[in-house]
Structures are given as structure tokens and as C-alpha cells.
């Protein structure tokens, strides 16, 4: 199971003088023990992350990321696997 979560990135926040977050993907192996190798930082300084789901098989992501030069916002449409039927 892979979980996505945000955690405050305080070092970047101090540098950028605004609150930013890291987007982290962590693959859990159900051992109950934290494994550093299973953690992957997807984005380092996110200002805002919004999700809109228009159907059960997709998610639209509206992300604003920040760096020293300014802000960059982008849209992404993530299709989820729609395998199988009612069976």
C-alpha cells in the first residue's frame, strides 16, 4: 500500500519566508516499522495542493509549488486503474 501525505518543510519555509510542505509517498510493507528506503519525496516545497474528483476513476490535481524565483501552478489529471467489473 502506498500512502501520500504532506509534511511541513520548515527549512524551505524559512528560506522562502512562507509555509511550504513536502509531498511524500510512502510504501508500507505492513511490518509496522518505518523503512527509510520506502519513502520518496515527490515534491519539496508545495504551497497548495487541491484535489477534485470528477469520477471514481480519476483525480484532478491543482498544485502550486514555490521556489526562490516565484510560484508555479500546474494542473494534472491522474487516471486511476479501472480494472474489473462488478464481479
Amino acid at each position, binding site marked *: 500500500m502506498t500512502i501520500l501525505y504532506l509534511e511541513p518543510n520548515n527549512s524551505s519555509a524559512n528560506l522562502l519566508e512562507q509555509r511550504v510542505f513536502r509531498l511524500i509517498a510512502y510504501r508500507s510493507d505492513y511490518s509496522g516499522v518505518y523503512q527509510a528506503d520506502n519513502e520518496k519525496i515527490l515534491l519539496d516545497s508545495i504551497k497548495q495542493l487541491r484535489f477534485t474528483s*470528477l*469520477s471514481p476513476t480519476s483525480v*484532478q490535481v*491543482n498544485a502550486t509549488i514555490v521556489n526562490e524565483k516565484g510560484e508555479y501552478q*500546474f494542473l494534472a*489529471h491522474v487516471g486511476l486503474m*479501472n480494472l474489473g467489473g462488478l464481479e
Partner: protein
Amino acid sequence: MIRQHRAFTLVEIIIGFSILAGISLIYLIFVRSSSKEMQFSADHLNAVVLSQKVAEDLIEELALNPYGFETLGIEAAALSQQEVVEGRSIFFSFIEDTRAPYGKIDINVDGAIGQQMQPLYDTVDKFKFTVAGRRLADSGDNEDRNLLQSNIDFFWKSQTGRGEFNTSMQMFSPITAKKVDLGLVVDQASIDVRVPAEVFANPAKTIAEIAAAAGENVEAIQALGRISLVTRDFVGSDYYIKRRNDIRQLIMRLGNTPTSDLENQFEIRKTIADTWYEMAKICFQVVAYLEPQFEILQAQGKFKTATGTGFNPIAFQQDLFYYRIIFEYFAGSMVQARYYYNTMLTSNLIRYKGGKVQTQLLQKLIDLYRIVAILPTRIGGMHEHRTFLDRIRTFSEGKNPYLHRLAVFERGLLDIPDEWLKRHANLDRLNNIIAVRVPTILSFIKTQTISMITP
């Protein structure tokens, strides 16, 4: 000692400045071009991301509706350019739910990339795009008919001129009829062997000899034999009665399952619905397999007298009635399956199972409503389908644009029944049997059975 203070000559200064100017110019050109390249790369990346959004929309639309290009207004050739911002394109009209009432995007006031959505608006404002799509084959019954080709082209003005990003993709969304061989449902050869003994009580003779003795056509006798044996076998097999008993048990289990046990409430209803559906399928296969046999019987059978054709008229009457009963089993099972799938959509169950199951259920139910709509014995079937689509339309508006467009499209097609059937090849094939041939067969059965018992 006199120190000599040598100054730069004018020539030296001019040369020095020239060299400095040359170096500065090269540096400026380098900085400017790398800045342009960076801008171009950023635009290119944005075009890739936006293009992917359009591609995902196409995939979703076509997964739900094989006529998705029509609902999205896409034609074989890209006629006009679309814009990303201000909701000017159907692909970018449901971006975010930013206004109350939340949970529903009203595209007249919400959902678009507006100027308030910064810095996104300024980033994507420059992009224009075209989408073209077509089926690989416009007609026919081959694999290419089920494959779709689409080209998505993004354009933008950049400091280096004009940027362009092109994507081409192929998708699968079937519209041809499923390949079904109804002959596989019944072991025809073994049925034919049994006909002389079991239908005509004459094991020593062949069908041809029985036909000659009865003054009937060989094909008519063979068709009659197949109708008799297949219907008797089916009714005698207890298949239907056994399944009905299974369902009775399941309904009792459902009654004893607490409403708070959502998992079992859902699963038992699903098993009941699936069992009814499976029964409907088996009954339909028998009805469809025998339909051509009735065609032969109607075209070639003489049936002049009750006894003149050499077979038992009472048994004949009974076999024809069996066919009628099997058809009624089919229609009834289909309606029951639809009912139980519908009960799985109740809010607490579907909240428990989630949106993906809900969509799958709705797709299944649309198929069942379509079939019930063409049943000659279900007068209100078409009205029920319309009402169901209206419910989906209301429920999905502003929430699931793909489903909403499907419901609106299907609802529109129902006003042109011929076109509706033409668009759904499987349904059209069912319609030819259920709505066109079966009423004729039932009328034939009625006529024949009345003449059998009325001298």
C-alpha cells in the same frame, strides 16, 4: 630618479572597450538564449501536462460511452481551436469546485480556470489546442471498428516563435455486436438423434422417413423436434426451479441480515441479482436458439389437422407453451435482476462500497433498462428507462460530467428509437429476436394451440 608614469593610449582604451563589448555581447546573447530556452521548456512541460489532461478525459469518456467523441463534440478533423482558460473548452470546464453550493460544479459560474486562479491562469492562458478523433473503421464488423484514434495538438506563442506539442493515441471502445454462437448452447447433433424416438415415438425411422410419412417437410419436422426436445429438456431439468429455490433461501438470509451489516447486505443482494441475471441469460439463449426453428416451422409446417402430421398434438401444444413459458421466465428474470441491482444502489450501501462500484452498477443497470425497454410484454419498460436516465442526469450534474453526458446522450437517442437501436449493436440483435420475432412466434403458438384444441 624620475618615475615614468605610462598611461593607456586612446587606441589601447578603444581596443579594450571593443573586446569588453564583444565579450559582453556574447554573454548577453548566451543569457538571453538560455532564458528563452528555459521559458520554452516550461511552456513545453505545461503543454505536456495539459495534453495529458485532455487524453485522460478522452479515455474516461470512451470507457463509459463508445460515442464519447460525439458527446465531447470531437470530429474526425479538428475544425476549431479551443482555449484552456475561462471554461471555453469542455475539457477545462470542471477544474475545481470553488463556490457554494459545494459538491456540484455549475459551469455557468464555476469550474473554469479564471483570472482569480493565479499563477495558473497566466501560465496556461497562452495555450490553444485542437482535438480530432475517429474510429479506425467507419463501418463494418471488424476490430478496427472498435478502435479509436485521437490527435491532440497544443499550440502557444513563445519568445522563440511558436511552440507546438502533438499527441496521438489509440483507444478501445467497442460498438460491434459480441460474437456469440448460439449453436454452442445446445448440442444439436445429440438432440437430432433423439427426435424420432422421443418426439414422434418412432425410434426405428429417420427424420426424413417420419417427414415423408406425415406429409411434412423434413426441415419442418426437424425444427419441430428441436423445439420439442429443447423446451422439454429445459423445463424438465429443474434448472429454473432450483435457481428459484436458491433465490428464496437468499431472500430469507437477506431478511435475517441486520441492515447495519452492510457487507452482507450488499453481497447477498448482489448474489440474488446475479442469479436472476444468469437465469435470464440461460432462458434467452434457449429462446434465441429456437427462434430460427420457429421460422422454419412457420414457413414450412402445414399443420392441417391435429393428427394428420403424425405427431402427438397434445405434446405439440405443450411444447409450444413451454417456449412461451421460457420466454416469460427470461422477461421476468430480467426485471427481477434489475430490481435487485437497483436495491444495491441505496445510499447507505453505496456509501459503504464507494463510487467505483456505483458507476459499475449504473452501467450494468443501463444495460438492463435497455433490454427491459424492448420487451414486448413490459409496456412501461421504455418509460422506466427514460425515468432512470433522468435520475442519473440529475444525480451526476456538476459532479460526474462523464456520466452526465452519457445520460443526456442516451436520453436524446431514446427519442429516435431506430437510431438508438442502430447505435447499440447487441441491443439491436436482441430487439430483432425479442421485439420482432418473439411476438410473431407467440402469436403463431396461440393460433396453433387453439386450432389443436378447437376442432
